[in-house]
């Protein structure tokens, strides 16, 4: 028997975890959907009933809503996944389920990183689709001929069409993994008040890290000036290299945090 990973056992574990975690998950998803609908409804109600005229700024609430609420949603889910291991009666049953620590950890990643991000994107997409389609049917005349050509374009654009990442796509993809990894670690590291404690820890850590970087940079570069001269080495695509660099850094940090989380799960005692 493979004591590290078995696909059938992993499938059973996902099913079992859904029984335990699914209710919290669906409630959180329901709350998220409710809040997004409320925001859309509150912001667009006047337009939908024809009380106000459409303005390009009417849909500007979507970006902060997506970012702030998306962050809250995935972090709350991640922060609650291993939280029960802080409670003795729940921890005993969970740790003794005949699945490997690696499978239990992977199930955690599946629910907190993949499923939560996909679920949030899906509900945001669906709600945006519904409201924007309705808006388009209310304002069908908001088509105009753009200045360069003659192709008509609607001013009422679906959120994901408007905000499709044009560059740094890989970074947009890795960021949810990084954020959830931190809160997943917090859920197993702390026994109580996981979300608050993780947030405070992140703030302190970022503060210290920022302070060190700023002071180091000042120490290294203070009183010096940059000299630009022709170099034989030319970087073809600096943006691409910057993207690869940032992506690799975030990936490395995510992998380190995952490794620590796995170790904490492995060493968890009751």
């Amino acid at each position, binding site marked *: *028997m493979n*004591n590290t990973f*078995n696909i059938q056992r992993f499938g059973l574990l996902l099913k*079992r975890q859904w029984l335990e975690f699914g209710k919290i998950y669906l409630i959180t998803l329901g709350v998220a959907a409710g809040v997004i609908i409320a925001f859309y409804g509150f912001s667009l109600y006047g337009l939908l009933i024809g009380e106000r005229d459409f303005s390009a700024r009417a849909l500007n609430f979507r970006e902060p809503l997506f970012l702030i609420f998306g962050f809250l949603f995935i972090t709350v889910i991640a922060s609650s996944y291993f939280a029960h291991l802080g409670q003795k*009666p729940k921890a*005993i049953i969970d*740790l*003794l389920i005949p699945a*490997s620590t690696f499978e239990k950890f992977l199930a955690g990643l599946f629910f907190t990183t993949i499923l939560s991000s996909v679920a949030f994107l899906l509900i945001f997409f669906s709600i945006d689709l519904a409201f924007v389609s309705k808006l388009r049917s209310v304002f069908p005349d908001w088509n105009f001929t753009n200045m360069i050509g003659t192709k008509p374009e609607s001013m009422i654009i679906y959120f994901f069409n408007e905000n499709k990442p044009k560059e740094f796509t890989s970074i947009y993809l890795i960021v949810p993994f990084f954020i959830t990894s931190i809160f997943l670690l917090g859920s197993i590291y702390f026994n109580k008040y996981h979300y608050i404690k993780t947030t405070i820890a992140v703030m302190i850590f970022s503060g210290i890290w920022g302070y060190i970087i700023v002071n180091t940079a000042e120490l290294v570069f203070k009183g010096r000036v940059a000299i630009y001269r022709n170099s034989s080495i030319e970087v073809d695509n600096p943006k691409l290299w910057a993207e690869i660099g940032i992506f690799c850094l975030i990936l490395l940090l995510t992998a380190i945090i995952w490794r620590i989380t796995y170790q904490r799960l492995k060493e968890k005692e009751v």
Partner: protein
Amino acid sequence: MIKINDLNFGYSKHKLLFKNLSMQLSNGHIYGLLGKNGAGKSTLLKNLAGLVYAQSGTLEVLGYNPAKRQPALLQQICFIPEEFYLPSVKIDAYVKANAAFYPNFDHAYFATLLAEFDIPVGQKLINMSYGQKKKLIIAFGLATNAKLIIMDEPTNGLDIPSKAQFRKIMASALTEDRCIIISTHQVRDLDNLIDTVIMVDENSIALKASVEEITNKLCFKRVKEMDDTIIYAEPSMAGYNAVMPNFHQEDSKLDLELLFNAVLAEKNKLKPIFN
């Protein structure tokens, strides 16, 4: 089945709960783990299940190190904790989600146990009483057909008929390849059930002996007056309930509570008898 060698464990590094603890437990036995509150009964069981890690020493269960929590071993361990949590689902859903992890799970036996324990099948687990929940996890644990059954205070919360049912079911659950360890501070609940007594006291095993060995070496009887041969005695209605060396190979019934108190009060007198 279980080999413990020089195990040192403590919740803090400076205060050890077990010092150089060594012991072997084999299959085909029901062990009664007794001890005062805080003596370390539950902690010893948690060590066996891999829920806590020892500072040093070795611990082997069915050839595995429980600290590694490998599925092959976890499939063979049924742990009934004193405090437990059950999700808000019906029995069927609970069994469907958990039974598949145990390759030897016996659904028919589980149904029989539920009927014997008189547990209503269609009810949600969250709506059950503590005693009903406890009986359910005992039934589930036994139906897994695990080789090692560990029970921490299993009779807590059970009513009197359920305690009798529990004893009956546990006695029938013992097979040659199974090892059952039951920890309790309610020693009378284990009367006529256990075949070996393990007593934990002051960082070590104060006594580990089979019921047969104990009744061969000690005699439990009621006496009218105290004398020098008596190791330990408690006043009763018509004299004293006493524990004394069984010099004349008399037959007597093991009084677990009396033995428990005798070990705690007169450990030094009893130790040479069992060594």
